[in-house]
């Protein structure tokens, strides 16, 4: 009994040694014997009975593997219209291109980012993947991603593209990706219209002074605070607050100059004012006292449970709040309204701005240039998943918009909550930029960390601005 175990172990170690040697001798292109369970392993049999119905720009000239990485997990697609639409159109494309074996690697967003960063470092990116705006410049410089300027101009859907969505994926006059998934706001105030009416505000206050006034009413009437916010993940303060509040102080030209390295600095007076104002607001008691210890998922529960009469978050929070309230508290669902951030005193920018955009774009590995047929297939896939099929799917099912604009979205089939949010996102407000879709991740990591110190009252705006500027100069 024991001896057989030992022999087994010895055999295994020999097998290991052999595989080690074999592995060393092998080259970089390795094929696996295990068939991926997630991807439909369509046999690449040469039958062209099933002519492609969609996107036949050149996709049918190629037979073989095409690797694709994204983060639309099946969990993500439940309730997230963009992901659902993305998975749907990928499946459609696969079906229309039976000669191509689409090898998908689907990971949750955090893990996706880690793996893509690793693959980029090793120069080993998949054929097609989703590019984050803030990596565009650095990866373009390194030659990792293909220049898609002409590809985009030649797109059959070019006329319908919302040009504003391309800016994060632009370097100079070159474009590096087709913005993907759905455009959604990153900063929205979700509020209980009834509660605020009781506090004397028929609609959400237009100034922060009025919010503070309301806060006195709320704290005297059983609420702990007026607005719930969660920032324990550190990115929330940047994406879902400062990005918009900063725009109110600096205006869009300042941030454009930061992107273009046109002379603007984080230490410029208006931005420092925005930082100090943010610090002051979070110290004022308007927000929940544990905003730096909980994340947005906890904070929105304060709103859902009725503990707090308003919440600040992004479109992903709105879809969760909507779906939950519909089941648990239809009355609050009916009473929920959406508002832009109130205007800070002394701010001179647009009063009606909110940051909206598409954070990711379909990018193509620059190595594909060597294989024309494969490249044509990749481009066809990129057109398809960002094209009208996707746009109509998310518009009809979720009242969301993507890169390709669909005319005549019929909102009447949707309820008030959905209509209101659609109008907030795409119609009634001015768009401003999402800071962390641009520049460099190194800058935002420093700023985000310092924002926690700032909102805790442990540092001041000038210091935060200084540290951010140093990271900007060193990394961008």
């Amino acid at each position, binding site marked *: 009994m024991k001896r057989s175990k030992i022999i087994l172990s010895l055999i295994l170690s020999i097998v290991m040694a052999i595989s080690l040697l074999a592995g060393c001798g092998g080259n970089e292109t390795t094929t696996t014997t295990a068939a991926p369970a997630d991807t439909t392993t369509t046999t690449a049999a040469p039958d062209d009975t099933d002519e492609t119905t969609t996107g036949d720009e050149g996709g049918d000239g190629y037979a073989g593997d095409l690797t694709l990485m994204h983060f639309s997990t099946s969990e993500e697609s439940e309730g997230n219209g963009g992901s659902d639409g993305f998975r749907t159109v990928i499946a459609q494309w696969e079906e229309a291109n039976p000669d191509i074996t689409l090898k998908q690697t689907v990971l949750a967003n955090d893990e996706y980012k880690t793996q893509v960063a690793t693959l980029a470092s090793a120069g080993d990116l998949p054929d097609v993947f989703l590019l984050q705006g803030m990596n565009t410049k650095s990866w373009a410089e390194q030659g990792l991603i293909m220049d898609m300027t002409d590809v985009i101009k030649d797109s059959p859907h070019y006329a319908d593209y919302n040009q504003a969505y391309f800016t994060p994926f632009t370097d100079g006059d070159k474009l590096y990706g087709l913005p993907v998934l759905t455009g959604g706001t990153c900063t929205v105030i979700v509020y209980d219209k009834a509660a605020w009416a009781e506090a004397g505000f028929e609609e959400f206050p237009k100034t922060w002074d009025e919010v503070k006034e309301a806060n006195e009413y709320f704290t005297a009437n059983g609420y702990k605070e007026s607005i719930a916010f969660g920032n324990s993940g550190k990115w929330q303060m940047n994406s879902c607050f400062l990005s918009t509040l900063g725009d109110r102080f600096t205006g869009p030209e300042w941030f454009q100059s930061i992107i273009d390295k046109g002379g603007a600095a984080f230490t410029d007076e208006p931005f420092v004012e925005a930082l100090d104002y943010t610090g002051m607001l979070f110290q004022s008691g308007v927000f929940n006292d544990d905003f730096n210890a909980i994340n947005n998922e906890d904070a929105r529960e304060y709103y859902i449970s009725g503990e707090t009469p308003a919440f600040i978050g992004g479109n992903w929070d709105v879809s969760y709040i909507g779906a939950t309230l519909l089941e648990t508290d239809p009355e609050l669902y009916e009473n929920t309204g959406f508002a832009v951030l109130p205007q800070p005193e002394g701010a001179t920018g647009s009063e009606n701005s909110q940051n909206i955009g598409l954070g990711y774009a379909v990018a193509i590995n620059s190595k594909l240039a060597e294989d024309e047929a494969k490249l044509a297939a990749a481009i066809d896939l990129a057109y398809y998943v960002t094209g009208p099929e996707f746009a109509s799917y998310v518009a009809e099912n979720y009242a969301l918009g993507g890169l390709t604009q669909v005319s005549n979205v019929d909102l009447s089939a949707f309820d008030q909550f959905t209509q209101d949010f659609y109008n907030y996102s795409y119609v009634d407000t001015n768009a401003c930029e999402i800071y962390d879709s641009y520049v460099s991740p190194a800058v935002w990591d420093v700023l985000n*960390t310092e924002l926690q110190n700032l909102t805790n009252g442990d540092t001041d705006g000038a210091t935060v601005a200084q540290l951010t500027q140093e990271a900007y100069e060193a990394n961008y």
Partner: protein
Amino acid sequence: MLTRRPPLRILIGYLLIPLALYVFAVFIPLITAAFYSMFEWKGGPNKTFTGIANYIALIQDKIFWLSFSHNLYLILLCVIGQVGVAFVFVMMINTRFVKLKSIHRTFGFFPSTIAAVYVGFIWLMIYDSRRGILNWFLELIGREDLTQVWLNNTDLVMTLVSIPLIWQYIGYYMLILLSATSSIDKEIFESAELDGANAFQRSIHIVLPMIKNTVIVCLVLCVSGNMKAFDNIYVMTAGGPGNNSMVLAMYGYKVSFAQQNMGYGSAISVGIFVLGLLVIGGMQLVSNKLSKD
């Protein structure tokens, strides 16, 4: 040590495969990292050789040294809390006064098998300021003045994130120490004529020297493990508020991935490795001194 050494070819035969594998998976990546640490490298094919510039930056990097001080604090707490408490528990289990021995032996190990996310969740609910158990308990005993947003307290946060880590790994060291005491005659623990206090003292005096080597292994495991501490703290605070609970491994990860500064991130990894060696070396010096005295 054996007096008669086995033939060299047998030794080589036994050591070759394990060590070759070890060098391949552990040392070559480390050497690769040391190589990359000499470059400015933003993650991609382009690298610029900068010599020791990254290391100069590292020496001046306040966050790196702040993180190191957090690691040292964590090590101190965990040596006492994990290995120390585990040793006491093992001694207690081995006396005849403690009942349900097999249950304690079996259950204790369980927390170290659960992913950090879930341990983090449970402790977040203990510390949570509104729904948390700690504040609820303080209110219950009438000390509402002590309730606070625990994980936002910059002075306390390192201690608070250490507690789950300590609790989670007590059973791990218990298991190791129990296996070591299993080679010791049971009667040492269970002599019927002794009362509790004396039995306990006696086990420490007699047992500790007998399992000294395993205790040292535990200490080395504990120190090296806490030099690399990452998951639990990442889940609970992500190093926040600000950098008040930042630790070395998390900082290295953040620089490499969140900031995509692979060159500097590699320098940080090498720095962690060197500091780890220094800490372990220092620990061995101290323990040699102590055992000589």
